[in-house]
């Protein structure tokens, strides 16, 4: 048996919007992340990937369901508590990098450490180390405006890994990059997971990135539809795939699933 997961979500439901526009973006999602594993979350646009990532990242509170992070139950927490959880357990990587344009690469990474209360000397050392680790040892003083997309994303990865959080979440980290840079970033993320024993979850559209992952989870219409392990040739269906016609009838399936859990 493997060690219990660093992050575990159970029966996560999330309703978004209000009144007429209300949608159930997630319909009972179960998901566990293990340290040392690079997981891809794949699914069509609007399937709920970002919503799920936001909930796993303690940025968004689920309508129902439970989340456990590092053994701690994450329910009914204040915004400050959630920030504290993110600070201790999580690192984030964004599609549009979200770097601070007025700060150098080094200072961007330092900021992520400063927020966590590291001493200024430690901030500097760790930031430099992280940038060297992502292959940007020669661009410490460069400003984001002078970096290529791939380099920017490397800075963002350095910022996420420098404080050594056990879980790293990335939302479409390669969507803004060309194929080659996209591959490089995926490879880097897989290395981050494998070498440092972190749980890395990345959302992606691109099936070509699959070979880098230890595990691929598929999501559609707010439901996990399948999971593949590395080297497994085919999708292991978590449930019979819904046809387009059966779309409107998700409820009976959920019932069955719950019975199965019981």
């Amino acid at each position, binding site marked *: 048996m493997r060690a219990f997961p660093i992050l575990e979500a159970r029966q996560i439901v999330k309703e978004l919007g209000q009144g007429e526009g209300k949608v159930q973006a997630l319909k009972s999602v179960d998901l566990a992340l293990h340290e040392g594993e690079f997981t891809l979350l794949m699914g069509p646009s609007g399937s709920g990937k970002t919503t799920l*990532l936001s909930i796993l990242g303690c*940025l968004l509170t689920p309508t129902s369901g439970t989340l456990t992070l590092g053994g701690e139950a994450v329910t009914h927490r204040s915004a400050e508590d959630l*920030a504290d959880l993110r600070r201790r357990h999580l690192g984030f990587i964004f599609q549009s990098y*979200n770097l601070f344009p007025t700060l150098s690469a080094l200072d961007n990474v330092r900021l992520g450490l400063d927020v966590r209360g590291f001493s200024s000397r430690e901030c500097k050392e760790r930031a430099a180390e992280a940038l060297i680790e992502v292959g940007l040892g020669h661009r410490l003083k460069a400003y984001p405006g002078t970096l290529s997309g791939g380099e920017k994303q490397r800075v963002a990865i350095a910022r996420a890994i420098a404080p050594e959080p056990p879980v790293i979440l990335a939302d479409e980290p390669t969507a803004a990059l060309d194929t080659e840079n996209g591959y490089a970033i995926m490879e880097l993320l897989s290395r981050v997971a494998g070498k440092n024993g972190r749980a890395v979850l990345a959302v992606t559209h691109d099936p070509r990135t699959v070979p880098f992952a230890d595990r691929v989870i598929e999501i559609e219409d707010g439901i996990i539809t399948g999971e593949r392990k590395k080297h497994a040739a085919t999708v292991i269906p978590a449930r019979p795939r819904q046809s387009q016609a059966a779309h409107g009838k998700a409820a009976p399936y959920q019932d069955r699933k719950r019975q199965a859990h019981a």
Partner: protein
Amino acid sequence: MTLIGILFAVVLLAVQLGLYLGARKMIVDTIDHAGGDIWIAAYGSNSFEQATILHGRERFAALSVPGVSAVEPLVASFAPWTRGDTSTTSVVVVGADNGTLSPWNVVEGSVSALSPDGVAVDRTYADTLGISGIGAVAEINGQRLRVDALTDGIRSFTTSPYIFMSLAKARELLSVPSDQATFYLVKVQPGVDVSGVKHALEKKLPGTSIFTNAEFRQTNLDYWLFGTGAGVALLGGAVLGLIIGTVVVAQTLYSSTKDHLAEFATLRALGSSSFYIHKVILTQATVSAFLGYGLGIAVSFAVAQASLHTPMPIMLTPQLAAMLLVVTVVMCAVSALSSIFKVTKIDPAMVFAR
């Protein structure tokens, strides 16, 4: 942009408060240089320039009060000054002898050797008075006067220049009988309690107003600054500067915060506490405060320097400058509140494009 707002506020505050301090100094300067401990004035007198004439018997009554060492008459009154070209301007005649309220900061000529028709005037007002320098002549009430001495920096809050002369000449010009005066300046013997002497004088001289020097200063300040509303206008301008400054700085800080909302959300997503984010905003505000203050106070000192030789000097003292620094920092901190309020409402989930 924030800096311009702060700079503007600092300069406005410095100029208004500097003018206010300058006004205070102008108002009390003559009183401080009169060198008396107690002022005897006609009942109800509220200012140096507008007191009415005393009867004359007060001097000897005052001299008989124990503890009094000297009682000097002083004449002060508004009067029309007729320039050489016969045009007229308002002045304040000040007549005294024996070193009582003798003009100070004399830069040309001599006041110890004032001729019977001689006067001392401040060179700041040379143009107003229509004089070219020592030896210039003019008239008050048809009587000829000659400028014997020039001073520098004796300014008048009322804008009517002080014309210093002998007691006899002042009485003559203003038709004040030779035993009468506008004020009697009492000197108290060393070691004697001034307020005790003041009470004794009040008993002895009913129907007069008797002030210690400090009280007379305050009476003049109250009258000119608040009785006339001039001081209220200056302080009001300062308050206005503070309000405008706060609003402008708050606006610019707020819009800069709004421009960087995504960055604050990223900070929040990275796990920063609200405290950390507030610190970032306050630090930004404080840095702006110091920079804006530095620029503003430099401009203010230049303006104050340029005003030194005008009739409305701006007194930018080190204390005022220090106080303005505190005010600027507080103003910026208050201005940061709206920004802080804005970022506390950030939804960190906005970091992901959904």
